[in-house]
């Protein structure tokens, strides 16, 4: 540290001793994860274990201000006795330091003292880790949301690093089941580090982060798929298994479609709660907008509201949502309509009619496709027919969406043009095959003519070359 820096530091310490404490504690904000081998059950830190622990009263939050600037200016960067000593001591005491190399906070210039307090410029261990110098050491699970929140809830502080980052995670957390139970003294519930880890916290956009979309379900599943851990809560623990069998998991994990929903897309992340009956459709409707819109205008909406049923999930389920099939519609064994409607009801008949319409279009489309494919295999140019087939496919998809009006009349309006397009493609297939027949017959006829001409020539040659000719 040069003279100017030292003097500046002294002035700062002498003039604002209280602020010093607050500022030092502020450093704790992000490295609260960093130095603390937490006892939380689901933490993914590299030096932590998954065992529950008790909780201590949360220390008073510090005001985040200077430290970030300090690291940016490099004023204290040159000396970090926390890092030096912990590395020298090796083994588990060195583990937090080595784990920090991938940590987003470390990458942004924060270090141990920024979360854990103390004075990293002090050579003497006792003075460096003196609580009077702001040292707080390892936070307990109960402390963690406030620790992280010291910085992460402070918009002014956070915008120095990432102006786009939300700052309501802590507030949201306390609206979650996890947060509420933590306040009530439940120390098994998830806190920040349970999902984000500690000493090696990666940015959410890092594919190796436990909260990256493709890893979220596994992260939640560490507790929620652990029957033993959940024993005292009397809640199901098969959600992960069911979700993994769903169309959403297939899209996310196999097709790497990051827009496909995982746990937090429906339940929220920091404010994780089981979505209530009234909000389920909003959750699904965030992506399936048209289906949700049609459903809201349908007669099912008031009926479901009255019965307290959760809209979409009545037919589609929740975690284990499979590819929707036409069999779900109608009055067959796999139809969901018959769960509520019985024979003789107008709705039962409507379900039958709607299924018949969809089936008719599927059949027409399949026949057209088979014909066009046959013509294509025979070498006919059928790109226009294929264009019509694609159009008919789109119309079928639209018809399947319009099913959510639960009105045979509404479905009829989209099925008719779809059927027309499918028939047009069918007709093109027929014409292509007719054309193929015409070409073959034409070929046969021309080959006969050519053969006769060749024979004529042959006879002519024989005639002119006949001896004595």
């Amino acid at each position, binding site marked *: 540290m040069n003279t100017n820096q030292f003097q500046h530091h002294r002035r700062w310490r002498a003039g604002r001793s209280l602020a010093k404490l607050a500022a030092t504690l502020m450093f704790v904000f992000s490295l609260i994860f960093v130095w603390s081998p937490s006892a939380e059950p689901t933490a993914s830190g590299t030096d932590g274990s998954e065992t529950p622990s008790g909780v201590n009263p949360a220390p008073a939050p510090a005001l985040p201000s200077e430290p970030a600037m300090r690291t940016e200016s490099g004023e204290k960067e040159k000396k970090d006795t926390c890092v030096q000593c912990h590395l020298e001591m090796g083994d588990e005491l060195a583990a937090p330091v080595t784990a920090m190399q991938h940590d987003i906070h470390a990458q942004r210039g924060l270090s141990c003292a920024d979360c854990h307090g103390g004075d990293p410029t002090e050579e003497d261990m006792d003075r460096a880790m003196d609580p009077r110098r702001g040292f707080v050491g390892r936070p307990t699970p109960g402390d963690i949301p406030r620790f992280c929140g010291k910085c992460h809830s402070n918009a002014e502080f956070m915008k120095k690093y990432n102006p786009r980052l939300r700052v309501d995670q802590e507030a949201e957390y306390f609206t979650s089941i996890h947060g509420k139970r933590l306040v009530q003294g439940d120390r098994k519930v998830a806190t920040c580090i349970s999902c984000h880890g500690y000493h090696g916290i990666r940015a959410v956009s890092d594919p190796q982060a436990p909260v990256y979309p493709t890893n979220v379900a596994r992260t939640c599943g560490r507790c929620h798929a652990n029957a033993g851990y959940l024993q005292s809560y009397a809640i199901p623990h098969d959600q992960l298994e069911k979700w993994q069998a769903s169309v959403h998991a297939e899209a996310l994990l196999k097709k790497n479609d990051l827009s496909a929903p995982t746990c937090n897309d429906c339940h929220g992340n920091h404010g994780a709660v089981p979505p209530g009956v009234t909000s389920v459709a909003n959750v699904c409707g965030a992506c399936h907008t048209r289906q949700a819109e049609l459903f809201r205008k349908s007669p099912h909406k008031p009926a479901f509201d009255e019965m307290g049923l959760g809209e979409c999930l009545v037919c589609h389920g929740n975690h284990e949502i499979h590819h929707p099939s036409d069999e779900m519609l109608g009055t067959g064994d796999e139809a969901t309509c018959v769960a509520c409607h019985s024979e003789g009801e107008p709705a039962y008949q409507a379900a039958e009619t709607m299924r018949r319409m969809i089936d008719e279009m599927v059949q027409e489309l399949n026949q057209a496709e088979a014909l066009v494919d046959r013509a294509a295999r025979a*070498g*006919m*140019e059928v*790109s*226009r027919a294929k264009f019509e087939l694609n159009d008919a496919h789109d119309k079928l998809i639209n018809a399947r969406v319009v099913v959510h009006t639960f009105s045979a009349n509404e479905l009829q309006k989209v099925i008719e043009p779809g059927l027309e397009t499918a028939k047009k493609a069918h007709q093109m297939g027929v014409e292509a095959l007719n054309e193929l027949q015409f*070409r*073959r017959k*034409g*070929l046969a006829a*021309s*080959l006969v003519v*050519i*053969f006769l*001409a*060749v024979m004529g*020539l*042959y006879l*002519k*040659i024989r005639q*002119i*070359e006949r001896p004595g000719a």
Partner: protein
Amino acid sequence: MEAISKHGWLTWLSDRLGLDPLIALAREKEVPIHRHTIWYYFGGMTLFLFIVQVATGVLLLLYYRPSAETAFESVQFIMTEVSFGWLVRSIHSWSANLMIAMLFVHMFSVYLLKAYRPPRELTWITGVLLFFIVLAFGFSGYLLPWNKLAFFATKVGTEIAGVVPVIGHFLLRFLRGGDEVTGGTLTRFFGFHVAILPALATFVLTVHIWLVQRHGMSVPPSVERQAQNVKTMKFFPNFLLRDAMGWLIALGALAALAALFPWELGEKADPFAPAPAGIKPEWYFLFMFQTLRLLPSHILFIEGEVLGVLAFGLGAVFWLLVPFLDKESVRGERNGLFTLIGVVILLYIAVMTVVGYLS
């Protein structure tokens, strides 16, 4: 012929056009009959298929539109909407391939029967030039439908041209009309295919046919050595009628191929799409392409590909100058070395083509 010359219309025409030398030529022209006579038919067959190409090509021109935006669609239109457009386009594509196949047969039969001996050196040279022109026809015509395979094959083909030492970069830019294969390349290839190459082909072909008439059919040295007086037949009508039989059979084959295996159109070229796996040129370029693929990246201190391109260039010059290199055949002596070279080249082309297809 006398029967014909008695016709008033022929006399009328002959008086005005001076057809007498032609009529005399037709009257006098004779074709030797021996065990290799069959090979005489392949030149005429190539010519017939060339005429088919001209006729179908002119018809395609009525609808084809040479730009990146319209080429594929116009060929699609020809294949689906234009009456018998599918037939014309398929015959054009099939006939092109058959013509090149017939040209290979004709050229190698001429080579192996040593028909390039004096005084037919120029006939050979014009024939080899026609062979190069036909390859250029094939290369330029392949791109015109502007489909995916053609696009990438042209990209690879022009890249190889770019390897030629010294003039490579100029050649690549000249062929592509820029650094990349674009709509500009298509328009340029169209120009080559329907204007420049036909003009060149017409000129060289006229000289070639005139030379054939001037010098008559060559009798192979082996036949000459065995028999002093080779039997002959009249070109008109005996040989021509046989020729016509072959042409009619070829026409039937073309019709069958076009009707049963219409030439595919594929997908429209997309310059931004990744190159499909296993891009291969047309079969007649495959032996050269496969050779370049098999060459190591460096031979001594020269790049393998450069060496390969140079070798093919030298091979072409050798091929063109064969009549002046084969001194023994000029003297009427047997020259096993040149026969061996021909057989080795044939085998090499066959093996490399098969390997190219299998790999």
